[in-house]
């Protein structure tokens, strides 16, 4: 499949102006900002202490005192959602970081070298892709023990081939360009060309993929911690909150509703942001999922 990359010919200002006319971008940006703000605020302040169990106050319906109600240990769900945001974001962000940090250089290198190196790297990529991601993540956490760090590694590993693929496809679309030929004629090495010319030109592609993987990372983290393989108590996590809510669904549906909404809104926000960026920066670029 060929990848078209239309390189925008705009200045920062005009992009910004365009950004704020793009509904998806604005909505995504605002939502993401709010979630981030929530996570940041939770470091300094939450309505209640999430490590403090008040069994006497368990499964209280939403009220003025507890906007989102309380859970089976009497903890304030709003506070837990706030602190949980921190966990979700940290896990997903670092996992994306791992994926980008390893995958992009690999993909760029494969595209720059071509031939056997490319073939070998891409086959390696296929190998990782051949493993069912969630299952493998479970295996990884089963081996190294459940916890946020291992969840990050498990999710991060499966981000690597995604970014490698996107980076390679993007780089392959850039390499035949004449400006690369010009740089080669100027005697630049393939590493220099990759850094100076290729990476800046596929940055938007990677940014968009990054937001998608970020959103997928949030979902994956929720899934893992739903299975009890994510962050461990007392650190609240959205997935585990949903798991715990299940045994109280009939009497305390709010235990399931609010963390669920938190996941949906965050993922929605990130996806909108990604769509928005893609629309603004290169309307024709094709994203890979």
């Amino acid at each position: 499949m060929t990848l078209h990359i239309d390189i925008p010919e705009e200045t920062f200002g005009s992009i910004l102006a365009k950004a704020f006319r793009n509904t998806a971008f604005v909505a995504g940006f605002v939502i993401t900002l709010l979630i981030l703000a929530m996570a940041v605020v939770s470091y300094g302040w939450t309505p209640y202490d999430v490590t403090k169990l008040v069994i006497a106050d368990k499964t209280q319906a939403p009220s003025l005192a507890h906007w989102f109600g309380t859970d089976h240990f009497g903890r304030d769900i709003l506070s837990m959602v706030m602190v949980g945001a921190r966990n979700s974001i940290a896990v997903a962000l670092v996992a994306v970081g791992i994926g980008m940090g390893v995958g992009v250089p690999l993909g760029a290198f494969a595209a720059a070298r071509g031939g056997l190196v490319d073939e070998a790297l891409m086959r390696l990529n296929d190998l990782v892709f051949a493993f069912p991601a969630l299952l493998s993540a479970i295996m990884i956490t089963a081996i190294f023990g459940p916890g946020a760090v291992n969840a990050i590694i498990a999710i991060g590993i499966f981000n690597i081939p995604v970014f490698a693929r996107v980076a390679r496809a993007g780089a392959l679309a850039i390499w035949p360009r004449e400006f690369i030929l010009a740089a080669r004629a100027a005697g630049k090495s393939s590493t220099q060309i990759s850094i100076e010319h290729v990476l800046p030109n596929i940055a938007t592609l990677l940014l968009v993929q990054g937001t998608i993987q970020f959103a997928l990372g949030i979902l994956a983290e929720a899934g893992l911690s739903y299975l009890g393989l994510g962050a461990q108590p007392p650190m609240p996590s959205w997935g585990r909150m949903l798991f715990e809510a299940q045994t109280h669904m009939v009497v305390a549906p709010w235990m399931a509703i609010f963390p669920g909404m938190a996941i949906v809104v965050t993922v929605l926000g990130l996806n909108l942001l990604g769509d928005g960026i893609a629309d603004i920066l290169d309307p024709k670029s094709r994203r890979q999922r």
Partner: protein
Amino acid sequence: MKLWKTILAAAVLSLAAGTSAFAARTDLVIGIALEPPHLDPTAGAAAAIDEVLYANVFEGLTRIGPNGEVLPDLAESWTISDDGKVYTFKLHTGVKFHDGTDFDASDVKFSLDRARADNSVNAQKGLFAAIDTVDVVDPATVKVTLKNPQGSFLYNMGWGDAVIVAPESADTNKEKPIGTGPFKFQSWAKGSSITLVKSDTYWGTPASLDKAEFRIVPDAAAYVPALLSGDIQAFPFFDADSVAQVKDDPRFKVVIGSTEGETILSINNKKPPFDKLQVRQAISYALDRKAIIDGASAGLGLPIGSHMSPASKDYVDLTGRYPHDVAKAKELLKEAGLENGFKATLKLPPPAYARLGGEIIASQLRDVGIDLEIIPVEWAQWLDQVFTKKDYDLTIVSHTEPNDIDIYSRKDYYFNYDNPAFDKVIADLGVTSDEAKRKELLGQAQKILADDAVVGFLFELPKVGVWDAKLQGLWENAPIQANDLTKVKWSE
């Protein structure tokens, strides 16, 4: 929303109308949490095997009754020699295995010899350790000679691991169990369900149910929807945490019974700083049992102060030994030189009581300065790391074997507890058959454990059964983990 609900409810009513009237049912779907790895109770420790087969498909010489009493089963009656070493069992006659072969004394000898053989994979070989010889006197009489008298021998013969199997089918029981019970095995859809049907050739009172399906529901969260949707009519071992959702529903009966499951916060007694008595006592003071019971067993567990079921006649109430006292706990830690607290790990096996209790305990211990890192582990890891390798600080587990206070005297047991005084009490107990004397010794043992704060004693695991209000005859208590369906029937 309101309107929607009305419309939908109307639609549902019209749909449900067709199925509402039915005669007294003779079928039952029972939910169980764990799937048995195979179906041979004499070759595996998994409680799930007994939950399906015990008393239903397989029978022993004796059996355990709903309240933990020993009842005759395949043995009609027995006599015990004066020295307490020879048991002569008189067997029922006319008993047939489900494959049509006859049951007689040779099957008993085969089963007992097989269970105690060197290459036996019986998970409870200890039950048979006292047996010296098994002799067939005549087809209806069998004589068991013990190496030394054993007070619990008849009880032991009532375990699922001691059921009688036929030599013809012993090797295939894992897949296709053949027993003598009122139900015979019909099918096993792996991962999904095991179905039993009534046996036409049963020697005793036939069962009321024609068909019983044990459906495997591994996730406690699915219990309530399964009940509410009518898919499953009984959960003999329900999730305590979910009880609140059905307890006010008139369609269901919630039955709280007792188990032999002492739920404890196990402590690695040799690992510093837990080797210090003050530290262990501080932990005991720091625990707020009420909150733990409320949070981890929906308020249904009975508090314990030592390793004995409150339902036991030998129970001594020691719950007041360490009242919840944060100041006292801190003081003890200070005495132990740990006024700044310390860090430790808490490994939690999968059951809800452990995972929920662990979170509460971690929070309570944090209040006295002990910072616990929670490490959830699967059973496999738990057995490997905690139970076998003793690589742990704290863990929570329910010891469900009945009358198992002796575990604290076992060498190399995972508590790493070693107290000669306690060992002596247990040794004495082994050779004492006088009831009053035994009671006293057991009381002493309980007290020593409490004084040493060997572990944090939490609560007796409640047996929460939830089933259709019209269902009768299911066990309320769980002296052993079994679902005896012999007397179960639908009212109406």
